[in-house]
């Protein structure tokens, strides 16, 4: 009888026992990303373990490496908040010299990537290190207690973008690091969401398989930060795709004229309104009293799609 390979490896690198919240989106990212990496390493080098992880300070680093415990079954290093990309550069250089086959995975949150770590990220991409940089985007600084980052979307409540008499919440459009990364003309850039785990898995595998740097930005809801019920994490992340608020795409070698889209409606008409996405989250609650803010958000999303080369309709 033929034995079929499981669609996703049963190997675990992100062990149970970490201290993440119930329903943590980024924790799902850690699990899937390392599994995908392992499969890619097995196919590319014949060794599923041929990788090491450099992690930026943030929620996932803190919950996974509380001395004397560790959630990591892979070689793992954390140095500081802003330098995962630079640390990964050093590890990769050392591996090259040691003749060790494999690839380095750098992981950072949106704060450690879009804000304080952007320079180190750009340096690493530009120098063409053989590193996959994975940005898990929970759209705020969660580890320090939910402050806005430049990746926080318009209108969202955070502790430093509170809605009030003179404030709508976060008042700037989201910064898309994936597009900045793609401008480096690196082999592979992708966005993903844990709302489509298979798509994310495939993209992580692809990122790990290319020679040279790759960047993946994955949407990963945070339960206390988004004020969502723990059991809705994946559903919220899926709605982000279905309402058009989170485009899924791949850009290879910085070729913005040939962006590959996933789950894009053929007619450009999204069927579900972004209100369905917003309503599930406490961080957007106040917007429902300010319809013009929701309209502004819709305009921003349309504009983003236009930049990506697509005219869309949002219900």
């Amino acid at each position, binding site marked *: 009888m033929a034995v079929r390979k499981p669609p996703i490896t049963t190997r675990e690198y992100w062990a149970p026992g970490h201290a993440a919240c119930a329903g943590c989106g980024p924790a799902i990212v850690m699990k899937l990303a390392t599994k995908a990496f392992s499969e890619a390493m097995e196919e590319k080098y014949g060794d599923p373990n041929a990788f090491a992880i450099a992690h930026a300070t943030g929620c996932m680093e803190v919950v996974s490496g*509380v001395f004397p415990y560790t959630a990591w079954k892979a070689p793992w290093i954390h140095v500081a908040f802003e330098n995962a990309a630079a640390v990964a550069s050093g590890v990769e250089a050392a591996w090259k010299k040691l003749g060790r086959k494999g690839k380095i995975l750098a992981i950072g949150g949106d704060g450690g990537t879009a804000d304080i770590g952007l*320079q180190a990220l750009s340096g690493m991409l530009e120098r063409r290190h053989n590193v996959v940089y994975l940005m898990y985007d929970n759209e705020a600084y969660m580890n320090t207690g939910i402050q806005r980052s430049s990746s926080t979307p318009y209108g969202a409540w955070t502790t430093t973008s509170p809605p009030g008499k003179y404030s709508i919440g976060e008042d700037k459009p989201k910064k898309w690091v994936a597009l900045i990364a793609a401008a480096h003309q690196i082999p592979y850039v992708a966005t993903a969401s844990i709302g489509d785990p298979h798509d994310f898995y495939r993209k992580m595998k692809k990122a790990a398989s290319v020679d040279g740097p790759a960047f993946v930005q994955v949407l990963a809801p945070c339960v206390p930060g988004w004020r969502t019920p723990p059991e809705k994490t994946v559903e919220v992340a899926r709605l982000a795709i279905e309402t058009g608020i989170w485009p899924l795409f791949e850009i290879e070698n910085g070729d913005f004229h040939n962006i590959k889209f996933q789950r894009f409606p053929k007619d450009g008409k999204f069927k579900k309104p972004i209100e369905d996405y917003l309503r599930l989250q406490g961080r957007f609650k106040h917007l429902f009293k300010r319809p013009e803010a929701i309209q502004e958000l819709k305009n921003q999303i349309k504009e983003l799609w236009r930049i990506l080369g697509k005219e869309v309709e949002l219900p």
Partner: protein
Amino acid sequence: MPMRKVMKGNEAAAWAAKLAKPKVVAAFPITPSTLVPEKISEFVADGEMDAEFIKVESEHSAISACVGASAAGVRTFTATASQGLALMHEILFIAAGMRLPIVMAIGNRALSAPINIWNDWQDTISERDTGWIQFYAENNQEALDLILIAFKVAEDERVLLPAMVGFDAFILTHTVEPVEIPDQEVVDEFLGEYVPKHAYLDPARPITQGALGFPAHYMEARYTVWEAMENARKVIKEVFDEFEKKFGRRYHMIEEYKTDDAEIILLTMGSLAGTLKEFVDKKREEGVKIGAAKMTVYRPFPIEEIKALAKKTKVLAILEKDISFGIGGAVFADTSRALINEKEKPIVLDFILGLGGRDVTFENLEEVVEISKKALEGEKVEEVNWIGLRKEIL
């Protein structure tokens, strides 16, 4: 046969790096150290050096890449100065806390503001509490030798701490002097291959480095850094001995010059020591009983050597190119600490001079001696004295 070449201090540092055979170098240019990465690039380009040279986008990433490489288990080198070192500050603690024996060459330069590219020691002095071993070179030969020594000490299993070697901006970095370049085979024998047991990032033996330390463990982790630095005292002396056997040049925690019958001893670091020796000769001819001393190792602080030196003199005058605002010179403060429980101790005076490249002249040194003499005669003098200050432009 060792070869003699006339070279700048920066080139001597690059030669030391070449001889030590680091597997990874990451560096970013800053005056006065720019020539170090440039020279290393040349060595790499010519195939004379087999290192991965990461041309990082900042000093912050330079030291971060060094931490990554060192944590992956290879010998690692970098160079910087001044603002560059300050930008590394956060990661310097981490390199020491993770016990990574990175070696860094520093062209000692003043810190802004005002921006100033010339020599003083404020950059490295400001990093004295990061857990890095600190050496200061008097001349280009010492810059080369101390970098080799730094690797040997840093990588010793009793130590495993990063080390920095300072040499004065322009006075050494850009001045040519004859330097003896040791034979590669002897250096290889001296340093051996670096094979760490505690840091390797190997998929075959996965480890977690850089975990979160709760209050239950943090103090113990920091204590091990303290302990390692204490161990370094002994190890440095052993390495100095071995270095002398292999290369014929002798180093001391504190090197003394005409101190045996001295009533006033001038203590300093770096290139100023050369000037002091000449000055001491001159004063001796005039019949003034003075001596000079040079501190080669500033961290770990040579407490025992300071005590021994203090026993020989009535006035210990510290000449330093740094300032810790609100107390005085850092070497002065540390020296006072070393002597606090001694029954008999000399008068300790602090002289802040040469900041931001201000020349230290014999005239300045005369002033130091005058103040020291007054103190010796029982007159009350300031403990912290700014020498060569142009009061008229204040």
